[in-house]
Protein backbone atom coordinates (compact mmCIF):
# COMPACT_ATOMS: atom_id res chain seq x y z
CA UNK A 1 0.00 0.00 0.00
CA UNK A 2 1.32 3.41 -0.97
CA UNK A 3 1.15 5.70 2.00
CA UNK A 4 1.45 9.37 2.85
CA UNK A 5 2.96 8.53 6.22
CA UNK A 6 6.75 8.67 6.32
CA UNK A 7 8.75 5.99 8.09
CA UNK A 8 11.59 7.07 10.35
CA UNK A 9 15.08 6.29 9.17
CA UNK A 10 18.55 7.12 10.44
CA UNK A 11 21.31 8.82 8.52
CA UNK A 12 24.18 6.30 8.44
CA UNK A 13 26.61 8.69 6.81
CA UNK A 14 26.91 11.98 4.97
CA UNK A 15 29.39 12.65 2.14
CA UNK A 16 30.27 16.00 0.73
CA UNK A 17 30.33 15.58 -3.03
CA UNK A 18 30.74 19.17 -4.17
CA UNK A 19 30.12 22.66 -2.90
CA UNK A 20 26.38 22.24 -3.10
CA UNK A 21 25.83 18.49 -3.36
CA UNK A 22 25.84 16.11 -0.43
CA UNK A 23 25.12 12.40 -0.35
CA UNK A 24 23.10 10.86 2.43
CA UNK A 25 23.26 7.17 3.21
CA UNK A 26 20.09 6.11 5.02
CA UNK A 27 19.06 2.93 6.75
CA UNK A 28 16.73 0.97 4.53
CA UNK A 29 13.88 -0.09 6.76
CA UNK A 30 11.19 -0.09 4.10
CA UNK A 31 9.55 -3.29 2.87
CA UNK A 32 10.32 -2.78 -0.76
CA UNK A 33 13.68 -2.42 -2.54
CA UNK A 34 13.91 0.13 -5.32
CA UNK A 35 14.58 -0.26 -9.00
CA UNK A 36 16.96 2.01 -10.89
CA UNK A 37 15.35 5.36 -11.67
CA UNK A 38 12.77 5.26 -8.88
CA UNK A 39 12.51 7.96 -6.25
CA UNK A 40 11.61 8.47 -2.61
CA UNK A 41 9.93 11.24 -0.70
CA UNK A 42 12.30 12.36 2.02
CA UNK A 43 10.87 14.23 4.96
CA UNK A 44 13.01 16.72 6.81
CA UNK A 45 11.17 17.47 10.02
CA UNK A 46 10.28 21.13 10.32
CA UNK A 47 10.96 21.77 6.64
CA UNK A 48 8.91 19.45 4.43
CA UNK A 49 9.11 16.60 1.97
CA UNK A 50 11.07 16.44 -1.28
CA UNK A 51 11.25 13.80 -4.01
CA UNK A 52 14.80 12.50 -4.51
CA UNK A 53 15.95 9.79 -6.93
CA UNK A 54 17.74 6.80 -5.57
CA UNK A 55 21.46 6.76 -6.44
CA UNK A 56 22.48 3.45 -4.92
CA UNK A 57 21.22 0.89 -2.42
CA UNK A 58 24.11 -1.34 -1.59
CA UNK A 59 24.63 -0.63 2.10
CA UNK A 60 21.54 1.42 2.67
CA UNK A 61 19.69 3.94 0.55
CA UNK A 62 21.96 6.55 -0.97
CA UNK A 63 20.63 9.90 -2.11
CA UNK A 64 22.69 12.72 -3.57
CA UNK A 65 21.04 16.05 -3.04
CA UNK A 66 21.81 19.43 -4.49
CA UNK A 67 21.07 22.43 -2.34
CA UNK A 68 18.49 24.39 -4.33
CA UNK A 69 15.70 25.35 -1.96
CA UNK A 70 14.49 25.47 1.59
CA UNK A 71 14.11 21.75 2.26
CA UNK A 72 17.38 20.77 0.61
CA UNK A 73 19.13 23.48 2.54
CA UNK A 74 17.76 22.10 5.79
CA UNK A 75 18.67 18.58 4.71
CA UNK A 76 22.23 19.71 4.05
CA UNK A 77 22.41 20.77 7.66
CA UNK A 78 21.75 17.24 8.91
CA UNK A 79 24.37 14.92 10.29
CA UNK A 80 25.17 11.27 10.75
CA UNK A 81 22.73 9.77 13.24
CA UNK A 82 19.95 12.27 12.59
CA UNK A 83 16.47 11.00 11.82
CA UNK A 84 14.64 11.59 8.57
CA UNK A 85 11.26 10.42 7.34
CA UNK A 86 11.09 8.44 4.15
CA UNK A 87 8.44 7.02 1.83
CA UNK A 88 8.84 5.01 -1.33
CA UNK A 89 10.06 3.75 -3.67
CA UNK A 90 7.85 5.50 -6.20
CA UNK A 91 7.65 5.68 -9.96
CA UNK A 92 8.35 3.30 -12.78
CA UNK A 93 12.13 3.53 -12.99
CA UNK A 94 14.28 3.11 -16.05
CA UNK A 95 13.41 0.63 -18.81
CA UNK A 96 14.89 -2.86 -18.72
CA UNK A 97 18.45 -3.04 -19.96
CA UNK A 98 17.92 -4.84 -23.23
CA UNK A 99 20.82 -3.74 -25.37
CA UNK A 100 23.54 -1.15 -25.58
CA UNK A 101 22.37 1.84 -23.58
CA UNK A 102 23.67 5.39 -23.59
CA UNK A 103 23.09 7.36 -20.42
CA UNK A 104 23.19 11.10 -20.89
CA UNK A 105 23.31 12.88 -17.55
CA UNK A 106 23.42 16.57 -16.84
CA UNK A 107 24.34 18.05 -13.48
CA UNK A 108 22.46 16.40 -10.64
CA UNK A 109 21.12 13.89 -13.20
CA UNK A 110 24.12 11.70 -12.50
CA UNK A 111 22.87 10.11 -9.25
CA UNK A 112 19.87 8.45 -10.96
CA UNK A 113 22.17 7.34 -13.77
CA UNK A 114 24.36 5.81 -11.11
CA UNK A 115 21.50 3.64 -9.91
CA UNK A 116 21.18 2.24 -13.41
CA UNK A 117 24.86 1.71 -14.04
CA UNK A 118 25.50 0.11 -10.67
CA UNK A 119 22.50 -2.15 -10.94
CA UNK A 120 23.34 -3.49 -14.37
CA UNK A 121 27.09 -3.71 -13.71
CA UNK A 122 26.24 -5.87 -10.76
CA UNK A 123 24.19 -8.04 -13.08
CA UNK A 124 27.24 -8.44 -15.29
CA UNK A 125 26.42 -6.09 -18.17
CA UNK A 126 29.02 -3.71 -19.50
CA UNK A 127 27.01 -2.74 -22.51
CA UNK A 128 26.63 0.91 -21.50
CA UNK A 129 28.03 4.34 -22.20
CA UNK A 130 27.85 7.38 -19.96
CA UNK A 131 27.96 10.94 -21.25
CA UNK A 132 28.03 13.33 -18.32
CA UNK A 133 27.95 17.09 -18.40
CA UNK A 134 28.68 19.23 -15.37
CA UNK A 135 28.73 22.99 -15.01
CA UNK A 136 32.37 23.25 -13.93
CA UNK A 137 35.02 20.70 -12.92
CA UNK A 138 34.27 21.40 -9.26
CA UNK A 139 30.63 20.47 -9.86
CA UNK A 140 31.51 16.93 -10.92
CA UNK A 141 30.06 14.44 -8.46
CA UNK A 142 31.23 10.86 -7.81
CA UNK A 143 34.76 11.45 -9.19
CA UNK A 144 36.13 8.26 -7.68
CA UNK A 145 33.21 6.18 -8.89
CA UNK A 146 33.39 7.65 -12.39
CA UNK A 147 37.04 6.56 -12.44
CA UNK A 148 36.07 3.08 -11.35
CA UNK A 149 33.27 2.78 -13.91
CA UNK A 150 35.66 3.71 -16.70
CA UNK A 151 37.30 0.34 -16.12
CA UNK A 152 34.12 -1.35 -17.31
CA UNK A 153 32.17 1.06 -19.47
CA UNK A 154 32.79 4.01 -21.75
CA UNK A 155 32.61 7.26 -19.73
CA UNK A 156 32.86 10.77 -21.18
CA UNK A 157 32.70 13.93 -19.15
CA UNK A 158 32.32 17.49 -20.29
CA UNK A 159 32.01 20.79 -18.43
CA UNK A 160 30.28 23.98 -19.49
CA UNK A 161 33.15 26.02 -18.16
CA UNK A 162 36.64 24.68 -17.53
CA UNK A 163 39.37 25.78 -15.17
CA UNK A 164 43.16 25.71 -15.21
CA UNK A 165 43.46 22.04 -14.34
CA UNK A 166 40.67 20.80 -16.59
CA UNK A 167 42.02 18.93 -19.59
CA UNK A 168 38.80 17.35 -20.77
CA UNK A 169 36.11 18.56 -23.09
CA UNK A 170 34.54 21.97 -22.58
CA UNK A 171 30.99 22.50 -23.85
CA UNK A 172 27.49 21.37 -23.19
CA UNK A 173 26.79 17.64 -23.16
CA UNK A 174 25.71 17.55 -26.80
CA UNK A 175 29.28 18.49 -27.79
CA UNK A 176 30.38 14.97 -26.86
CA UNK A 177 27.63 13.20 -28.76
CA UNK A 178 30.17 12.21 -31.43
CA UNK A 179 31.36 9.68 -28.82
CA UNK A 180 28.10 7.78 -29.10
CA UNK A 181 29.03 4.30 -30.21
CA UNK A 182 25.77 3.00 -31.57
CA UNK A 183 22.75 4.87 -32.83
CA UNK A 184 20.62 1.81 -32.34
CA UNK A 185 21.08 2.03 -28.56
CA UNK A 186 18.56 2.92 -25.93
CA UNK A 187 19.14 6.49 -24.80
CA UNK A 188 18.33 7.56 -21.27
CA UNK A 189 18.51 11.29 -20.63
CA UNK A 190 18.49 12.72 -17.13
CA UNK A 191 18.96 16.38 -16.39
CA UNK A 192 17.45 19.83 -16.59
CA UNK A 193 14.67 20.11 -19.12
CA UNK A 194 16.61 22.47 -21.37
CA UNK A 195 19.48 19.99 -21.52
CA UNK A 196 17.08 17.15 -22.34
CA UNK A 197 15.47 19.26 -25.05
CA UNK A 198 18.74 19.90 -26.86
CA UNK A 199 19.90 16.34 -26.35
CA UNK A 200 16.75 15.02 -27.99
CA UNK A 201 17.18 17.44 -30.87
CA UNK A 202 20.74 16.28 -31.45
CA UNK A 203 19.86 12.60 -31.12
CA UNK A 204 17.13 13.00 -33.71
CA UNK A 205 19.65 14.62 -36.02
CA UNK A 206 21.81 11.56 -35.54
CA UNK A 207 18.89 9.48 -36.68
CA UNK A 208 17.96 8.00 -33.33
CA UNK A 209 14.39 6.73 -33.18
CA UNK A 210 12.05 8.59 -30.82
CA UNK A 211 11.00 5.20 -29.46
CA UNK A 212 14.53 4.59 -28.18
CA UNK A 213 14.83 7.79 -26.22
CA UNK A 214 13.82 7.87 -22.54
CA UNK A 215 13.56 10.99 -20.44
CA UNK A 216 13.56 11.23 -16.69
CA UNK A 217 11.13 14.05 -16.03
CA UNK A 218 11.09 16.32 -13.04
CA UNK A 219 7.99 17.92 -11.59
CA UNK A 220 6.74 19.03 -8.23
CA UNK A 221 5.68 15.76 -6.62
CA UNK A 222 3.98 15.77 -3.25
CA UNK A 223 2.34 12.36 -2.76
CA UNK A 224 4.44 10.08 -4.95
CA UNK A 225 1.63 7.82 -6.13
CA UNK A 226 -0.72 9.79 -8.31
CA UNK A 227 -3.23 11.40 -5.97
CA UNK A 228 -2.03 14.93 -5.19
CA UNK A 229 -2.17 16.09 -8.79
CA UNK A 230 0.91 18.31 -8.92
CA UNK A 231 3.00 16.42 -11.45
CA UNK A 232 0.59 16.19 -14.39
CA UNK A 233 2.13 16.17 -17.83
CA UNK A 234 -0.90 15.81 -20.03
CA UNK A 235 -2.71 12.67 -18.99
CA UNK A 236 0.33 11.29 -17.19
CA UNK A 237 1.44 11.66 -13.62
CA UNK A 238 5.20 11.91 -13.46
CA UNK A 239 5.26 10.25 -10.04
CA UNK A 240 3.39 7.13 -11.05
CA UNK A 241 3.49 6.89 -14.86
CA UNK A 242 7.07 8.25 -14.83
CA UNK A 243 9.41 9.73 -13.90
CA UNK A 244 10.88 7.92 -16.90
CA UNK A 245 8.98 8.36 -20.16
CA UNK A 246 9.58 7.12 -23.63
CA UNK A 247 10.05 10.33 -25.59
CA UNK A 248 7.62 9.30 -28.32
CA UNK A 249 4.88 8.96 -25.71
CA UNK A 250 5.02 12.53 -24.41
CA UNK A 251 6.62 14.52 -27.20
CA UNK A 252 3.39 16.18 -28.34
CA UNK A 253 2.43 17.44 -24.92
CA UNK A 254 3.24 21.15 -24.90
CA UNK A 255 4.31 21.14 -21.27
CA UNK A 256 7.24 18.88 -22.04
CA UNK A 257 10.29 21.13 -22.47
CA UNK A 258 8.16 24.05 -21.24
Amino acid at each position, binding site marked *: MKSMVPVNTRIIDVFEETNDVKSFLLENNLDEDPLPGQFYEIYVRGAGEIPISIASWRDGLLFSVKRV*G*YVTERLHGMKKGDILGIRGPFGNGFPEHRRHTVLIAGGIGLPPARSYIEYWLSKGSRNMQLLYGARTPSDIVYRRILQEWSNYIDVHITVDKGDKEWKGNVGVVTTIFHRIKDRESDFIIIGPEIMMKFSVMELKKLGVSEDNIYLSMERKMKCGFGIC*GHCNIGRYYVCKDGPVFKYSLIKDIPEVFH
Partner: protein
Amino acid sequence: MIYKIKKDLLKKYIDGLLEKYEVWGPKKIGNDTVFSKLKSGEEFIDARTLLGPKESIYPIKEKIGEMESKEIIVMGIKSCDLRAYRMLDDVLGIDEFYSSRRRNVHFLNFVCTEPCEYGFCSTFFGPRLDEYEMQFTDIGEYYIVESKNDKLIGRDFENATEDDLKILESKMRDFYNKMPPMNIENLHKKISWDDPRYREFSKRCISCGACNFACPTCFCFDTYDDDGLYREWDSCILSGFTRMAGNVNPRNTLDLRLRQRFMHKLRYHYENFSYYLCTGCGRCIEVCPVRIDIRDFIRGVGP
Protein backbone atom coordinates in the same frame (compact mmCIF):
# COMPACT_ATOMS: atom_id res chain seq x y z
CA MET B 1 -36.85 -1.22 -2.92
CA ILE B 2 -38.78 1.93 -3.59
CA TYR B 3 -40.30 3.70 -0.61
CA LYS B 4 -41.77 7.04 0.11
CA ILE B 5 -41.82 9.29 3.14
CA LYS B 6 -44.09 12.17 3.95
CA LYS B 7 -42.14 15.39 3.75
CA ASP B 8 -43.10 16.58 7.21
CA LEU B 9 -41.79 13.32 8.71
CA LEU B 10 -38.30 13.94 7.36
CA LYS B 11 -37.31 15.98 10.42
CA LYS B 12 -38.30 13.17 12.69
CA TYR B 13 -36.39 10.71 10.54
CA ILE B 14 -33.25 12.85 10.73
CA ASP B 15 -33.63 13.23 14.49
CA GLY B 16 -33.71 9.45 14.64
CA LEU B 17 -30.53 9.21 12.61
CA LEU B 18 -28.87 11.80 14.83
CA GLU B 19 -29.29 9.51 17.82
CA LYS B 20 -26.81 7.09 16.27
CA TYR B 21 -24.82 9.00 13.70
CA GLU B 22 -23.13 12.22 12.83
CA VAL B 23 -25.43 13.64 10.16
CA TRP B 24 -24.49 16.30 7.61
CA GLY B 25 -26.97 18.32 5.62
CA PRO B 26 -27.81 21.68 4.12
CA LYS B 27 -28.92 24.32 6.57
CA LYS B 28 -29.43 28.05 6.82
CA ILE B 29 -26.89 30.37 8.38
CA GLY B 30 -28.20 33.90 8.09
CA ASN B 31 -29.31 34.29 4.51
CA ASP B 32 -26.94 31.62 3.24
CA THR B 33 -27.40 27.91 2.85
CA VAL B 34 -24.37 25.84 3.82
CA PHE B 35 -23.58 22.17 4.05
CA SER B 36 -22.47 21.24 7.52
CA LYS B 37 -23.11 18.99 10.49
CA LEU B 38 -26.73 18.99 11.61
CA LYS B 39 -27.78 19.43 15.19
CA SER B 40 -31.41 18.55 14.58
CA GLY B 41 -33.80 17.51 11.85
CA GLU B 42 -35.33 20.93 12.19
CA GLU B 43 -32.23 22.51 10.65
CA PHE B 44 -32.32 20.42 7.50
CA ILE B 45 -33.50 22.01 4.29
CA ASP B 46 -33.61 20.37 0.89
CA ALA B 47 -31.58 22.91 -1.06
CA ARG B 48 -28.55 23.17 -3.25
CA THR B 49 -25.67 24.79 -1.40
CA LEU B 50 -22.99 27.06 -2.85
CA LEU B 51 -20.35 24.49 -1.87
CA GLY B 52 -20.97 20.76 -1.73
CA PRO B 53 -19.97 18.53 1.19
CA LYS B 54 -16.65 17.43 -0.32
CA GLU B 55 -14.86 17.95 2.98
CA SER B 56 -17.20 15.54 4.78
CA ILE B 57 -14.83 12.72 3.85
CA TYR B 58 -11.93 14.73 2.43
CA PRO B 59 -11.04 17.44 4.96
CA ILE B 60 -9.70 20.72 3.60
CA LYS B 61 -6.70 20.44 5.87
CA GLU B 62 -5.59 17.46 7.87
CA LYS B 63 -2.56 16.24 9.70
CA ILE B 64 -1.08 13.30 7.86
CA GLY B 65 -1.31 10.18 9.96
CA GLU B 66 -3.93 11.51 12.34
CA MET B 67 -6.77 9.87 10.57
CA GLU B 68 -10.09 9.50 12.24
CA SER B 69 -12.99 7.78 10.70
CA LYS B 70 -16.47 7.29 11.99
CA GLU B 71 -19.72 6.29 10.44
CA ILE B 72 -21.45 9.40 9.14
CA ILE B 73 -24.51 10.20 7.10
CA VAL B 74 -24.47 12.90 4.47
CA MET B 75 -28.08 13.75 3.95
CA GLY B 76 -29.36 15.99 1.21
CA ILE B 77 -26.29 15.73 -0.94
CA LYS B 78 -27.15 16.55 -4.54
CA SER B 79 -26.63 13.93 -7.20
CA CYS B 80 -23.87 16.00 -8.85
CA ASP B 81 -21.86 15.90 -5.64
CA LEU B 82 -22.49 12.22 -5.04
CA ARG B 83 -21.50 11.34 -8.58
CA ALA B 84 -18.28 13.27 -7.95
CA TYR B 85 -17.30 10.94 -5.13
CA ARG B 86 -17.42 8.03 -7.53
CA MET B 87 -14.91 9.93 -9.61
CA LEU B 88 -12.74 10.79 -6.63
CA ASP B 89 -12.73 7.09 -5.75
CA ASP B 90 -10.86 6.32 -8.96
CA VAL B 91 -8.04 8.63 -7.93
CA LEU B 92 -8.08 8.83 -4.15
CA GLY B 93 -9.26 5.27 -3.60
CA ILE B 94 -5.67 4.16 -3.01
CA ASP B 95 -5.26 6.75 -0.26
CA GLU B 96 -5.73 5.10 3.11
CA PHE B 97 -7.27 8.16 4.74
CA TYR B 98 -9.77 8.88 2.02
CA SER B 99 -10.79 5.29 1.58
CA SER B 100 -11.31 4.59 5.26
CA ARG B 101 -13.67 7.55 5.52
CA ARG B 102 -15.30 6.63 2.27
CA ARG B 103 -16.18 3.19 3.60
CA ASN B 104 -17.85 4.75 6.59
CA VAL B 105 -20.13 7.24 4.91
CA HIS B 106 -23.75 6.90 3.86
CA PHE B 107 -24.73 9.32 1.14
CA LEU B 108 -28.46 10.00 0.97
CA ASN B 109 -28.81 12.02 -2.20
CA PHE B 110 -31.67 14.35 -3.00
CA VAL B 111 -32.65 14.67 -6.62
CA CYS B 112 -33.15 18.15 -8.06
CA THR B 113 -36.53 18.50 -9.69
CA GLU B 114 -35.83 22.02 -10.90
CA PRO B 115 -32.64 23.04 -12.73
CA CYS B 116 -30.35 25.34 -10.77
CA GLU B 117 -29.04 28.56 -12.21
CA TYR B 118 -25.56 27.41 -13.16
CA GLY B 119 -25.90 23.64 -13.35
CA PHE B 120 -25.74 21.54 -16.49
CA CYS B 121 -25.82 18.06 -15.00
CA SER B 122 -28.14 16.77 -17.73
CA THR B 123 -25.13 16.92 -20.04
CA PHE B 124 -23.40 14.21 -18.03
CA PHE B 125 -25.93 12.00 -16.22
CA GLY B 126 -28.74 14.18 -14.94
CA PRO B 127 -30.18 14.84 -11.53
CA ARG B 128 -30.85 11.15 -10.78
CA LEU B 129 -28.23 8.48 -10.37
CA ASP B 130 -28.19 4.76 -11.00
CA GLU B 131 -25.68 4.20 -8.25
CA TYR B 132 -26.74 5.40 -4.83
CA GLU B 133 -27.51 4.17 -1.38
CA MET B 134 -30.79 6.01 -0.83
CA GLN B 135 -32.06 8.47 -3.39
CA PHE B 136 -34.78 10.98 -2.46
CA THR B 137 -36.99 12.72 -5.02
CA ASP B 138 -39.52 15.39 -4.14
CA ILE B 139 -42.89 14.55 -5.69
CA GLY B 140 -44.99 17.03 -3.74
CA GLU B 141 -46.37 15.74 -0.48
CA TYR B 142 -43.84 12.91 -0.38
CA TYR B 143 -40.27 12.10 -1.16
CA ILE B 144 -39.84 8.97 -3.23
CA VAL B 145 -36.98 7.03 -1.68
CA GLU B 146 -35.14 4.58 -3.89
CA SER B 147 -33.05 2.38 -1.65
CA LYS B 148 -30.23 -0.02 -2.38
CA ASN B 149 -29.35 -0.45 1.25
CA ASP B 150 -32.26 -0.74 3.64
CA LYS B 151 -30.11 -0.36 6.72
CA LEU B 152 -31.23 3.24 7.16
CA ILE B 153 -34.88 2.81 6.24
CA GLY B 154 -36.98 4.18 9.09
CA ARG B 155 -40.38 3.43 10.49
CA ASP B 156 -42.12 6.21 8.65
CA PHE B 157 -41.25 4.92 5.22
CA GLU B 158 -44.11 3.54 3.14
CA ASN B 159 -44.03 1.65 -0.09
CA ALA B 160 -44.23 3.84 -3.16
CA THR B 161 -47.06 3.27 -5.61
CA GLU B 162 -47.12 3.08 -9.38
CA ASP B 163 -48.69 6.53 -9.43
CA ASP B 164 -45.85 7.95 -7.33
CA LEU B 165 -43.37 6.64 -9.84
CA LYS B 166 -45.29 8.21 -12.66
CA ILE B 167 -45.04 11.58 -10.97
CA LEU B 168 -41.34 11.01 -10.58
CA GLU B 169 -40.97 10.20 -14.25
CA SER B 170 -42.89 13.25 -15.35
CA LYS B 171 -40.81 15.43 -13.02
CA MET B 172 -37.68 14.10 -14.63
CA ARG B 173 -39.07 14.68 -18.13
CA ASP B 174 -39.80 18.26 -17.13
CA PHE B 175 -36.31 18.63 -15.79
CA TYR B 176 -34.71 17.50 -19.02
CA ASN B 177 -36.97 19.77 -21.02
CA LYS B 178 -35.83 22.69 -18.95
CA MET B 179 -32.16 21.71 -19.03
CA PRO B 180 -31.42 20.14 -22.39
CA PRO B 181 -28.07 18.36 -22.49
CA MET B 182 -25.20 20.01 -24.35
CA ASN B 183 -23.44 18.22 -27.14
CA ILE B 184 -20.22 16.80 -25.72
CA GLU B 185 -19.55 14.13 -28.28
CA ASN B 186 -15.83 13.67 -28.65
CA LEU B 187 -15.23 16.75 -26.53
CA HIS B 188 -12.01 15.19 -25.26
CA LYS B 189 -10.70 15.01 -28.80
CA LYS B 190 -11.88 18.44 -29.82
CA ILE B 191 -10.58 20.39 -26.86
CA SER B 192 -7.31 21.96 -27.80
CA TRP B 193 -4.03 22.87 -26.19
CA ASP B 194 -3.94 26.01 -28.27
CA ASP B 195 -7.42 27.33 -27.54
CA PRO B 196 -6.97 31.14 -27.47
CA ARG B 197 -9.55 31.39 -24.71
CA TYR B 198 -7.07 30.28 -22.06
CA ARG B 199 -5.28 33.55 -22.62
CA GLU B 200 -8.57 35.45 -22.68
CA PHE B 201 -9.58 33.93 -19.36
CA SER B 202 -6.16 34.68 -17.90
CA LYS B 203 -6.72 38.38 -18.43
CA ARG B 204 -9.60 38.42 -16.01
CA CYS B 205 -8.93 35.47 -13.68
CA ILE B 206 -7.91 36.77 -10.26
CA SER B 207 -6.30 33.50 -9.16
CA CYS B 208 -8.61 32.92 -6.23
CA GLY B 209 -8.69 29.14 -6.67
CA ALA B 210 -12.44 29.04 -6.02
CA CYS B 211 -13.14 26.92 -9.11
CA ASN B 212 -10.97 24.23 -7.55
CA PHE B 213 -12.18 24.58 -3.99
CA ALA B 214 -15.83 24.51 -5.03
CA CYS B 215 -15.42 21.70 -7.55
CA PRO B 216 -16.70 18.39 -6.17
CA THR B 217 -14.30 16.49 -8.44
CA CYS B 218 -11.09 18.44 -7.81
CA PHE B 219 -8.83 16.30 -5.68
CA CYS B 220 -5.41 18.00 -5.69
CA PHE B 221 -3.73 18.73 -2.40
CA ASP B 222 -0.46 20.17 -1.24
CA THR B 223 1.61 18.85 1.63
CA TYR B 224 3.77 20.90 3.95
CA ASP B 225 5.39 20.86 7.30
CA ASP B 226 3.77 22.97 9.97
CA ASP B 227 4.95 21.28 13.13
CA GLY B 228 4.13 17.93 11.55
CA LEU B 229 3.11 17.01 8.02
CA TYR B 230 -0.18 18.36 6.79
CA ARG B 231 -2.08 18.16 3.58
CA GLU B 232 -4.44 20.82 2.32
CA TRP B 233 -6.64 21.30 -0.73
CA ASP B 234 -4.65 22.96 -3.44
CA SER B 235 -5.47 24.84 -6.62
CA CYS B 236 -3.89 24.32 -10.03
CA ILE B 237 -4.63 27.99 -10.79
CA LEU B 238 -1.88 29.03 -8.38
CA SER B 239 1.68 29.34 -9.65
CA GLY B 240 3.12 27.61 -6.60
CA PHE B 241 1.21 24.50 -7.57
CA THR B 242 3.92 23.50 -10.04
CA ARG B 243 6.80 25.73 -9.05
CA MET B 244 9.86 23.76 -7.96
CA ALA B 245 12.93 24.77 -6.01
CA GLY B 246 15.14 27.22 -7.84
CA ASN B 247 12.08 29.01 -9.26
CA VAL B 248 11.60 26.48 -12.07
CA ASN B 249 7.96 26.44 -13.14
CA PRO B 250 6.56 24.42 -16.04
CA ARG B 251 3.34 26.44 -15.85
CA ASN B 252 4.70 29.87 -15.17
CA THR B 253 1.85 31.85 -16.71
CA LEU B 254 -1.80 31.93 -15.78
CA ASP B 255 -3.05 30.90 -19.22
CA LEU B 256 -1.11 27.64 -18.92
CA ARG B 257 -2.65 26.98 -15.54
CA LEU B 258 -6.16 27.68 -16.79
CA ARG B 259 -5.45 25.35 -19.71
CA GLN B 260 -4.44 22.66 -17.24
CA ARG B 261 -7.74 22.99 -15.43
CA PHE B 262 -9.91 22.68 -18.53
CA MET B 263 -7.72 20.06 -20.18
CA HIS B 264 -7.55 17.94 -17.06
CA LYS B 265 -11.30 17.94 -16.60
CA LEU B 266 -12.28 17.48 -20.22
CA ARG B 267 -9.42 15.55 -21.76
CA TYR B 268 -6.66 14.08 -19.59
CA HIS B 269 -9.01 12.48 -17.14
CA TYR B 270 -11.15 11.18 -19.97
CA GLU B 271 -8.10 9.62 -21.57
CA ASN B 272 -7.36 7.81 -18.32
CA PHE B 273 -10.85 6.86 -17.18
CA SER B 274 -13.20 7.32 -20.15
CA TYR B 275 -15.37 9.93 -18.46
CA TYR B 276 -15.17 13.67 -17.97
CA LEU B 277 -14.04 14.94 -14.59
CA CYS B 278 -17.07 17.18 -14.31
CA THR B 279 -20.54 16.58 -12.99
CA GLY B 280 -22.15 19.72 -14.37
CA CYS B 281 -22.80 21.10 -10.89
CA GLY B 282 -21.98 24.61 -12.09
CA ARG B 283 -20.32 25.59 -8.84
CA CYS B 284 -17.11 26.78 -10.51
CA ILE B 285 -19.22 29.29 -12.42
CA GLU B 286 -21.09 30.51 -9.40
CA VAL B 287 -18.03 31.02 -7.18
CA CYS B 288 -15.91 32.59 -9.90
CA PRO B 289 -15.52 36.30 -9.14
CA VAL B 290 -15.17 37.02 -12.86
CA ARG B 291 -17.68 34.44 -14.04
CA ILE B 292 -15.52 32.25 -16.20
CA ASP B 293 -18.14 29.83 -17.47
CA ILE B 294 -17.24 26.23 -18.28
CA ARG B 295 -20.56 25.83 -20.13
CA ASP B 296 -19.59 28.58 -22.55
CA PHE B 297 -16.18 27.04 -22.83
CA ILE B 298 -17.60 23.65 -23.77
CA ARG B 299 -20.03 25.20 -26.25
CA GLY B 300 -17.19 27.10 -27.87
CA VAL B 301 -14.86 24.14 -28.34
CA GLY B 302 -14.07 23.82 -32.03
CA PRO B 303 -15.34 21.07 -34.33
